[in-house]
């Protein structure tokens, strides 16, 4: 093994930008979850209440 086997080293700037991208991806995924949830409710409409108890 060599002294370089730690793999990619990110600079401070790269780490900061990776964080901003990670936050953006997390928010996008959250938005997708909310979107599919809301659309499911909308598409089911009042039928959502019409189920055997």
């Amino acid at each position, binding site marked *: 093994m*060599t002294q*370089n086997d730690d793999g990619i080293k990110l600079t401070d700037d790269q780490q900061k930008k990776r964080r901003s991208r990670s936050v953006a991806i997390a928010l996008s995924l959250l938005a997708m979850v909310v979107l599919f949830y809301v*659309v499911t409710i909308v598409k089911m409409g009042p039928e959502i209440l019409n189920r055997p108890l």
Partner: protein
Amino acid sequence: MSLADRQDTMIASSNAWEGGMGSAGDYIALLKPRVMSLVIFTAFVGMMLAPGSVHPVIAAVAVLCIAVGAGASGALNMWYDADIDRIMSRTAKRPIPAGKVTPDEALAFGITLSIGSVLTLGLLVNWFAGAFLAFTIFFYAVVYTMWLKRSTPQNIVIGGAAGAFPPMIGWAAVTGDVSLESFVLFLIIFMWTPPHFWALALFKKGDYETAGVPMMPVTAGETVTRHNILAYAVLLAPIGVAPYFLGYASVVYGAMAAGLGLAFVWLSYDVWRKREGDAAHTASVRLFKFSLYYLFLLFAGLLTESLIKGFVA
């Protein structure tokens, strides 16, 4: 070089990896937000004019998907055009030539958003609209960017279709099909695109020349471009009034569209007759700016009327 040496070289070069420099804002810039805003607007107008109605949430999802799809094709365009974007002053600050996002990152981003937007539109709204969005992304990224843009001075004419599809997709999101009315909305943007971009190309000719993009002023000369601008303006003016004649816009819209169409023809004529020096430059800049207002006002007029009809009904 031994295998061990090669591995060391690869590890050393991977330590100096230059990717990962893009912030969330750089990725948003890849989506061409200004083009996206026009797409959102025209798609929304298409939805509002379409007969029938959809739930506001479904309408919002459709507009979101169309916007993201448009942004994805913008990212794919920037990925493919990074080499010429680097040369042109107008595009040199885009994320890839500026070194903030690598071409591979832009490609992955564009493909992910393309698939995501098409599947979401298909699943949540309807599959016809989803397929139409997929076709539009393909048309812009492959037919226009990869094929036509660098091979023919008619690039803007045929490629402009991609920018003209959003109101038809918006319409299809409501009705599940296309119609003559939605085709007229397409035709307005389709006929508007060439004079709009040729006016830009007249005063940015040097940029396109340097980058080797065969825009009409570069390949056919400025005189031929001026003839074409005027011809398209004359054809565009009556098409702008067509919604009135087809009965889905009032006489107020018809009068406004006719006035704006005449102004478009007049400014194009001005570009046609002023061929030298500052006067020629000013005329083409003026036409370019007016063309933006022209398209916005026509669609804003149609939108306003449909909203008024909605309140009255």
